[in-house]
């Protein structure tokens, strides 16, 4: 039977992967969100004089408890299937299937909420604010992927997270990001995580949800800016594998830490690694590392040891410096809290600097000014808390940077090609590129497309 390759996912196989042609259909959904650009032009409700009373606007009714538990069950099941698909079945096809399901269920049906990424904020707020009731479902969404990561690595990212699924499915022409750049940009998710926890824990804002690029696409609604950012991420995802997961996702930062200690890890070859290097080329996320031996001579060993010790020595300095910067940042970041914002507006007004404000801000300020003394006291308390949080945030960033430098200095010994534990998404692409796996699956060598073969023969 004559077979054909199907883009990035089928390029090494002689078998047809039927999911691939459906990728463009996802774009269909996202492009439809463009219609929501026009939602900004809504009319205000008509002013009826006939006595008709407009129904009162109300908040959406909370999801029933049963359905919340159903969501948790679906999450657990999806995690189970994804883990099975990666570790037992070793099938990219199953991973794609699970991704499609997760995208439809957690993405489009549940409209990206509740999601593990945003749950960081609920948990943070719940830990620092005793009056905030943390739903069990949210706890499960926060904890389950992390628990799975402790055993199996980032199987949540592989096929359960709708954000990851969306980016993975549109990846058509991957461009490799240099490893050194990846290391540098890899700090950003930890910074984002720290800032998000600071704001959530102090009750200032849920910035992860507020600035999530994919939620507007899942909901087919959102501001023009939000939709533009979402579309931009999607376009970038066509060329750079999972940009959000790699360079921004705060929950990914937690999963990285968790999967560092995972009991099991993804193994590329089902047999002995022949060091053919094909798997490293197939990974669009650049997480497959080559075999590395210990330094071969005492001079090289001394150099490694020196770099490591230097990195260790500067760690306290880095933490102290970052903590100071974090505290400075908190002086401005306190403005994210509504009480501080109102208090600042009030103080400015009292000082005679009274810039124009949006009507909603005017109303909020007028209300808050009914008891300006209490407002100022409240704001000062919040500001102090955020400043303390700023020290911790800065310290956290310094610690992450220091540990990263230590990791680079120390290196790691490997005897075969293997994915980096903290970075591997478990997408199962590398399985298809491994000749041992292909032999086990009864597949032949990778087919060379006719025009390329012709050019290679010349």
């Amino acid at each position, binding site marked *: 039977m004559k077979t054909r390759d199907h883009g990035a996912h089928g390029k090494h196989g002689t078998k047809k992967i039927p999911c691939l*042609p459906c990728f463009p259909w996802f774009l*269909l959904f996202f*492009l439809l969100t463009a219609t929501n650009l026009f939602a900004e*032009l809504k009319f205000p409700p008509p002013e009826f004089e006939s006595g008709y009373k407009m129904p009162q606007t109300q908040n959406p009714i909370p999801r029933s408890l049963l359905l919340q538990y159903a969501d948790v069950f679906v999450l657990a099941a999806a995690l189970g299937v994804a883990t099975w698909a990666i570790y037992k079945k070793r099938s990219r096809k199953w991973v794609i299937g699970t991704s499609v399901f997760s995208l439809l269920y957690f993405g489009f049906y549940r409209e990206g909420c509740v999601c593990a990424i945003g749950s960081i904020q609920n948990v943070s707020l719940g830990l620092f604010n005793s009056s905030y009731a943390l739903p069990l479902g949210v706890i499960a969404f926060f904890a389950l992927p992390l628990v799975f990561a402790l055993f199996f690595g980032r199987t949540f990212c592989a096929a359960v997270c709708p954000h990851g699924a969306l980016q993975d499915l549109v990846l058509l022409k991957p461009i490799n990001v240099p490893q050194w750049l990846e290391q540098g940009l890899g700090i950003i998710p930890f910074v984002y995580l720290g800032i998000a926890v600071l704001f959530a824990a102090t009750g200032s804002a849920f910035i992860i949800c507020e600035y999530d690029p994919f939620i507007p696409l899942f909901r087919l609604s959102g501001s023009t800016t939000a939709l533009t950012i979402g579309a931009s991420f999607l376009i970038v995802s066509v060329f750079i594998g999972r940009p959000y997961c790699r360079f921004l996702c705060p929950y990914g930062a937690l999963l990285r830490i968790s999967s560092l200690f995972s009991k099991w890890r993804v193994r590329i070859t089902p047999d002995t690694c022949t060091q053919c290097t094909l798997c490293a*080329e197939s990974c669009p996320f650049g997480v497959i590392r080559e075999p590395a031996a210990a330094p071969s001579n005492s001079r090289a060993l001394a150099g490694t040891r020196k770099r490591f010790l230097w990195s260790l020595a500067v760690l306290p300095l880095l933490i102290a410096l970052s903590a100071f910067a974090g505290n400075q*940042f908190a002086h401005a970041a306190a403005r994210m809290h509504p009480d501080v914002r109102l208090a600042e507006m009030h103080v400015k*007004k009292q000082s005679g600097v009274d810039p124009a404000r949006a009507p909603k801000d005017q109303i909020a300020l007028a209300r808050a000014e009914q008891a300006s003394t209490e407002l100022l006291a409240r704001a000062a308390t919040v500001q102090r808390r955020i400043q303390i949080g700023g020290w911790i945030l800065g310290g956290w960033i310094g610690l992450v940077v220091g540990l990263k*430098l230590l990791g680079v200095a120390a290196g790691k010994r490997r005897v075969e090609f293997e994915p980096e534990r903290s970075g591997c998404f478990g997408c199962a692409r590398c399985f298809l590129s491994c000749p041992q796996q292909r032999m086990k699956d009864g597949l032949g060598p990778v087919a060379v497309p006719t025009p390329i073969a012709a050019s290679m023969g010349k």
Partner: protein
Amino acid sequence: MRTLLTTITKFGNRVARISSDEARALAIIAASMVVIIALVMLISYQRGVAEDPLRVSELKTLRDQLHLAPKDEALMTRIRALDVQQRDRYFTRVNRNEIGAWFLAGGTVVFVWAASRWFSARKRPFLPRALTPMVEVNRNNSRARYAIAGVSGVVVIASAIIGVTQRVQLTAAPKSPIMAGAVPDGGVTLETMRQNWPQFRGADAGLSTLTNIPAKWDIATGENIAWKITPPVPGVSSPVVWSNRLFLTAADKASREVLCFDTANGALLWRLPAKLATAEAVVKMEIPELTGAAISTPAADAQRVFAIFATGELIAADHSGRLVWSKNFGKPENPYGHATSLAIWRDKLIVQLDQGDHEANKSKLYAFDVATGKVAWEAARPHIGASWGTPITFNSGGRDQLVCVGVPDVISYDPATGRELWKCKGFDGEMCPSPGFAAGFVFAMIPSQQLFAIRADGSGDVTSTHIMWKTNTAVPDITSPISNGELLFTMETYGMLTCYDAKSGAKVWDHQYEGEFQASPTIAGDKLFLFTTEGDGICLRVGKKFEELGRSKFGEAIKATPAFVGERMFVRGATNLFCMMAKGATK
């Protein structure tokens, strides 16, 4: 059915066999289509934003007019038609865009599918390669260290810069120049208000510091009279002055106007008719002849003059007589029409629009931006009925206050926001006298019944805590009280002039005059000026003993309150406008 299935199968097979060249051609066509559709949609979107139905000026104007003339059927019909037209255009555009989005999506799907086929056909297979040499690994590690240091450095430095430059300040900074005196665009300060006479009874509720205003004058001989002119249209409102411009409002059955005179010689510089929003607003309005439509005193700042008429039109014009902005409050529910005068505070024009009965809840207090006429704030005045007293502004105990009399409450507001500061309950009657302020007390009255001195440093309901003294003898029903901080004077309509100790309320002296008094008494320096409807001008010394300094005849009724600027006093009579200036005075 079978034929259809066969056709679909054949089409599917053909699509599956698409060649690399065909895929490339299809991708290019689809991409072109996507770009064209996207451009069309973008243009349509931009046009949609530009034609935002919420910003259609015509509709907005009509709706503003309807707000002021809510029963205008013709207006309603026009609004409905325009509204339907706008909604129709809007939804047509939305539908068109939705269809466009489907085409866009379809084109994109085809493009992505074809492109993926094309890419996969051109994809070179991976070939085994040598392991990365150790030198290269070390170089990469070195670069990684720099990258980590670079990114973290940017984060740390950016955080520190943001923290230093955008620091939250929760302690009040020193007062800005706006508070201290200077006003950036128009508006007034207390200093400039005192140098001019920008509103009814001036900057300090009837008190002027000028000391050389003549106590006597003679119309027949021209003694101490700088000039006298006859305005083309009559009115009972008082004059206001800014620099060398004197402004009056005037009205007859045909028109309502703002008149501007040169203070140096009384020359009429310009006259500006008040623009009407609808003809109906005038036709239905019955203004008593006694008061006329020009009863409210205008207000002025360095660039503009503001005038409101009994019929509810508010206009702002520049000093050369060009209309700057206008509003129409519609027919006021008030037996005399709108009669409260305008007040000005910094860059805000204060309009106290009390109307209807207590239960109607129609009364409101507005602050308009002097430059644009936009509402800076508005405050509802629940359970306040129609009133005619003019609000006053002052600073007491570090708080700027705007005090409005009304029935049943006298209320102090924050003039910057309209927030209520305190209120004193229990007022009644036809609230015509304006409040006075001196020595930390607001003087307000139940006309003809009781006069109250209310301490102005309270918050909330001060009725039982801040009324420092009250009296029920010879309380005016039209004129407003005047105090220099030590003594308080009241002028009862039928001639009883009473002097009180402002702080204790003890009567110092009184004097019964013959005649009727409607103009509020004013103080300039140590002189108290009184005017009668019989045309008498009386000057007394402000002191603890009754001492009349002079009495002069105008020959016509004086109902307006005079304005004092420079070394001049401007008095409006029933027919003429007079400027008094002592012999030898130069300003």
